[in-house]
């Protein structure tokens, strides 16, 4: 149900080897339907936290609980990496087919689902193209379609648009919000852009570095999803300033060393 806790992080820490804590004592409850941004400078452990939630990194201590899915799905979690991470030897549709193929779904059985995922990101025409023939933004769309094809409840995105130009980025921002809204997804979106986090999310988790930890947990109260116009409104600036101040606080606190 929307609003019920779906992910619970309880005093989660992560240490790589003998180095300092990448994530320290992180506790967080994420509710179904939340669009959460992990915002912070590089090295604050936001990607590490995301990878632990995905199960790609083991936790050093603490627990992460994900509420079991009620409906049937091949895979509950979709993950979008910072790079498109496509298989260069496979066509767009084979890349999107991959998660279903790994779940044992036949090509015929997956065809309509793959087609639907491609339609949702506007790439139907490019089903037979190879990744090298696509622009950066289109590759990212393929990556999103691949994450969506298993009909996950939770979508994890690790700074997915950081390398894209402003126009493409803003367009993809809208696409992600639309998909999240239509499918009732719970999204965790890692970013270092204040503006992106304000526009996209219902909640912004501000993180600080050395050791990586949650510094602030702010709710963006403006109704969601938001319109393009809101992006250039005073309300947006005010929210951005509020979150920016919070982020600045974490930077001042660690006596930036440059």
């Amino acid at each position, binding site marked *: 149900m929307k609003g019920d806790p779906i992910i619970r992080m309880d005093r989660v820490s992560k240490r790589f080897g003998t180095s300092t804590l990448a994530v320290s004592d992180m506790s967080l409850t994420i509710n179904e339907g939340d669009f959460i941004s992990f915002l912070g400078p590089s090295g604050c452990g936001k990607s590490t936290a995301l990878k632990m939630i995905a*199960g*790609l990194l083991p936790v050093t201590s603490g627990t992460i609980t994900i509420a079991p899915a009620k409906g049937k799905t091949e895979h509950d979690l979709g993950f979008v990496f910072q790079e498109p*991470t496509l298989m260069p030897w496979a066509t767009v549709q084979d890349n999107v087919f991959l998660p279903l193929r790994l779940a044992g779904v036949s090509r015929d059985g997956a065809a309509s689902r793959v087609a639907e995922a491609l339609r949702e990101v506007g790439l139907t025409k490019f089903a037979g193209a190879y990744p090298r023939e696509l622009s950066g933004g289109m590759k990212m769309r393929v990556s999103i379609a691949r994450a969506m094809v298993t009909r996950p409840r939770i979508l994890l995105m690790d700074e997915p648009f950081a390398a894209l130009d402003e126009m493409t980025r803003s367009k993809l921002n809208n696409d992600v919000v639309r998909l999240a809204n239509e499918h009732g997804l719970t999204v965790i979106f890692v970013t270092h852009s204040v503006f992106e986090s304000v526009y996209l999310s219902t909640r912004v988790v501000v993180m600080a570095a050395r050791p990586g930890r949650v510094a602030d947990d702010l709710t963006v109260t403006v109704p969601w999803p938001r319109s393009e116009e809101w992006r250039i409104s005073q309300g947006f600036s005010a929210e951005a300033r509020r979150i920016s101040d919070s982020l600045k606080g974490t930077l001042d606190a660690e006596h930036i060393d440059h």
Partner: protein
Amino acid sequence: MQSISTIDPVDDAAPMNIEAMARESREKLLTWALPVATLLAAIGAWEWLVWAYQIPHYLIPAPSLIAKTLWTDGPSLMGSAWFTVRLTFWSLSLAIIGGVLLGAVFALSRAVEMSLFPFAVILQVTPVVAIAPLILIYVDSTFAALLICAWIVGFFPILSGTVIGLRSADHNLRDLFTLYRATPWQRLRFLLAPSALPSFMAALKVAGGLSLIGAVVAEFVAGAAGQNTGLASRIIESSFRNEIPRMFAALVLVSMLGIVIFLLTTWASRRVLGHWHESEIRRDQ
């Protein structure tokens, strides 16, 4: 394999680009006609020099004499050539099987790699000419002995190419396969094997040439021991009898075999990588 040069659907409807087509056919002509013409010119110059300076055929035979020898000695040379061809392709096939299997084991287990890698290196760095006499003593069948020699030479590039290739899979893609709980077989089939193809194909090109060299060297050693085998032993035999034109004829056959191997491996590489890997993609100007 269809090659897509653009994804813009508008381009499909656009009138055919005459200039580009002309350029393409010119390009095709150049890639074939130029090397063939140069080769013919070189052979012509050789023929002329031999004729003009009256160089005796027991020093350097004219190309026409070599061609004549190829024709007259053809049947007997062909038997030897067939021996060398079989030897080369058997050794290459076994090098591929052994190299890929051991490479896969190495990529799966660091411990196995650590323990076996020194042996692979020793095999690689010991000149095959130096071990061949021993192998010929130990192994009864001459063909099997030569096969072992040629295999040793072709095996190492395949092994190292496979190991590097299997390790070169993108780490994010590895994470993706972990996320979707891929089985080891799925990981190998859909991620590691395709990722390994570029360096495997590069290794195959090297190993193809080396298998022939290994076969020829092994035959030389066997030939020196008086065993009649393939083209290389015919070269030695002709040199004992001072039949220089026949030496050249056998040499031409060896070179042709090398060229065929080169063309085959190049074709295979293009076939496998042409639609996606940078090394084989042809770009429009």
